[in-house]
C-alpha cells in the first residue's frame, strides 16, 4: 500500500508543479465570483417584485441548478484533461520504464495514479459545488437537501469518467483516449436528454434509449440523481425545473450499477496494464 501512496503523492505533486492545480483553483474562484455577482443582482431584482415565496424559490433553484450543472460539466472535462496522458503519455516518453523496473507491482502504479486524480477532482467538486451552495444560502437563505449524498453522487460521476480514462490509457493513444472519454460523456448527456423528453411525452422507446445510454456510462444519471436529492420539490414539476432537471428519481439498482462501474473499469485497467508489453 505504501507504494500506492508514493505514486498518489507524485500524481498530486505533478498537478501542483504543472500549475494545473493553481490555474484550476484560480479559475474556480473566478467562476464562484461571477456566479455570486450574477446571483446577487438577480436576487435584488426579484426581491423587489412581489412574487410568492414558492415562485422566488423556483427562480433561485433554476439558477443554482444551472450553476451546479456547469460544475458537473467542468469537473468531467477537468478530470479527463488531467488524467488522459497519465499512462499512455508515460509509456510514450518511456518515463514508465524506470518506475516499473523497481520492486513494485503495476497495479500499484495504476491505483496510485487513480487515487491521486480522484482526490484532486473530488476536492474540486466539493469546492465549486459547495461554494455555489454557500453563496445561495448566504444571500437568499435557500438550503438544499441531502447535500453530502448529492455531492457524493457528483463525485461518483467524476470517478466513473476517471476510471474509464485510466483504463483507456492502458490500451489507447492519448488522443484516442481523450476522444473516447468525451464521446462517452456526450452519449450519456444526449441519452439523458432523450430519456427526459421521452418521459415527459410518455414515449417508452425514448425512455429505453436513455436507460441504455445510462448503462453504457452512468454519468448523466448520477447527476440527475444528485439533483433529485438536492431539490426534491422539483420532481413533480418538470416543466418548471428547466432542461437540467429530472423528472423521475433513478432506481437504486442504477445507483449500485454506477458504484460498481468505476471499480470494474479500474480492475480492467490493472489487468490490461499488467499484461501490456512496453
Amino acid at each position, binding site marked *: 500500500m505504501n507504494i500506492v501512496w508514493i505514486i498518489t503523492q*507524485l500524481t498530486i505533486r*505533478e498537478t501542483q508543479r504543472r500549475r494545473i492545480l493553481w490555474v484550476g483553483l484560480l479559475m474556480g474562484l473566478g467562476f464562484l465570483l461571477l456566479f455570486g455577482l450574477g446571483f446577487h443582482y438577480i436576487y435584488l431584482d426579484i426581491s423587489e417584485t412581489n412574487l410568492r415565496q414558492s415562485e422566488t424559490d423556483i427562480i433561485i433553484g433554476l439558477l443554482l441548478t444551472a450553476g451546479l450543472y456547469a460544475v458537473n460539466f467542468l469537473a468531467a472535462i477537468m478530470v479527463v484533461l488531467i488524467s488522459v496522458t497519465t499512462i499512455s503519455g508515460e509509456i510514450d516518453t*518511456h*518515463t514508465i*520504464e524506470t*518506475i516499473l*523496473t523497481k*520492486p513494485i507491482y503495476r497495479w500499484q502504479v495504476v491505483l496510485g495514479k487513480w487515487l491521486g486524480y480522484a482526490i484532486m477532482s473530488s476536492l474540486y467538486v466539493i469546492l465549486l459545488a459547495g461554494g455555489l451552495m454557500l453563496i445561495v444560502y448566504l444571500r437568499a437563505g435557500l438550503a438544499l437537501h441531502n447535500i453530502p449524498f448529492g455531492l457524493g453522487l457528483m463525485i461518483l460521476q467524476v470517478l466513473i469518467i476517471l476510471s474509464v480514462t485510466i483504463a483507456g490509457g492502458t490500451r489507447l493513444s492519448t488522443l484516442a483516449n481523450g476522444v473516447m472519454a468525451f464521446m462517452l460523456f456526450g452519449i450519456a448527456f444526449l441519452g439523458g436528454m432523450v430519456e427526459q423528453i421521452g418521459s415527459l411525452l410518455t414515449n417508452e422507446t425514448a425512455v429505453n434509449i436513455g436507460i441504455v445510454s445510462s448503462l453504457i456510462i452512468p454519468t448523466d444519471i448520477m447527476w440527475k440523481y444528485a439533483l433529485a436529492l438536492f431539490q426534491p420539490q422539483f420532481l413533480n414539476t418538470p416543466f418548471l425545473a428547466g432542461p437540467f432537471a429530472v423528472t423521475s428519481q433513478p432506481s437504486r439498482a442504477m445507483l449500485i450499477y454506477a458504484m460498481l462501474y468505476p471499480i470494474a473499469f479500474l480492475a480492467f485497467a490493472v489487468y490490461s496494464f499488467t499484461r501490456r*508489453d*512496453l
Partner: protein
Amino acid sequence: MKAIEANGLRKEFGEKVAVADLTLEVQTGEVFGFLGPNGAGKTTSVKMLLGLTSPTAGTARLLERPLGDRRVRAKIGFLPEHFRFHEWLTAAEFLDFHGRLYGMSTSQRRQVIPDLLHLVGLADRAHTKLKAFSKGMLQRIGLAQALLNDPKLVILDEPTSGLDPIGRRLVRDIINGLRDEGTAVFLNSHLLSEVEKTCDRVAFINQGKILRIMSLDELEQGNIQVRIRVGQPTPTLLENLKQFGQHVTQEKGNGRIHLYIQSEEQLPHLATWIIQQGYTLYELTPHHLSLEEHFLQIVGTESED
C-alpha cells in the same frame, strides 16, 4: 554468481520476430557489451530481462532468481535509452522518488543521494528542475538513479549517446568502479570505441540473433588481418594459404594478398612457409582488427546472407 542467465528468450510481435534466441550468461563483476545495429533487437532483449515485455518463449534468471521476481529488482539498476523523466521534479526530488520506489528508508536516501549527485557531477544542481537539464545532464541523473540501491546488476541502454567526452569519461569511470565492487554491468551500445574501452566481453546481435560472444582479450589476440606482398604470386599460392587462415583474397592491381589468422604465433610459420615455397617475400604486415572492424565483419557478413 551469475548476474544474468538467459536461455532461448524469444519475442515475436505478430509476424515479426524481434528477438529470435537470446542465450547468454553474464557473471557478477563483469562488464558485458551488447552490440548490434539499430533495430537488431537490443532494446527488446533488455525489456524482456527487466520484465517490461513478456517473452514469447524461453527462460531467464537475474541474480539467480527467475524472471518476474519483484524482490530481485531491488538489486537491479536500469537506465533506459529514450527517456524523459518527470521534468517538473528537481534532481534531488527525482532521486528521492526513485529511492522510495526501491523501498529505501528516509535515512538511507538522505545518505546516498548527495553522494550520487556528487558522483555524477551534479551536486550543485540538486535543486534545479529536470526540465532545465541538458541531454547529457539528464543522462547523468538517470545513471545516478540506476545506482541508488547499491545494485548487483546495472543495465544501461545507450548510456553515453548524449554525453560529451568528459561525460563519457565519467560514465566509464563509474562503470569501472562498479566492476571493482563486483557489480555486473550490461551495456547496450553502438558506440564501439566506448565499449572497447569498458567491456570485458561482448555479444554481437543482429536481426534478433546473437552472432558471436567473445572476450575483448580474444579480440585483441585472435583474428589478425595479414597483408602479404610477394613477387609473382600464383593461384596455387592463394589456394595453399587457406591452410593458415580464412578469407584469402587478392587485391586487383598491386596483387597484395589478405587473409585472417587466429593467433600471432602463426606469423613466423607463415613467413617461413612462403619463403620455403620459393617466393620472394616483400611484405608481411599483421593488423589487429578494432572492435568496429570486427563488428562490421561479423554483422556485415551475416546480414548479407
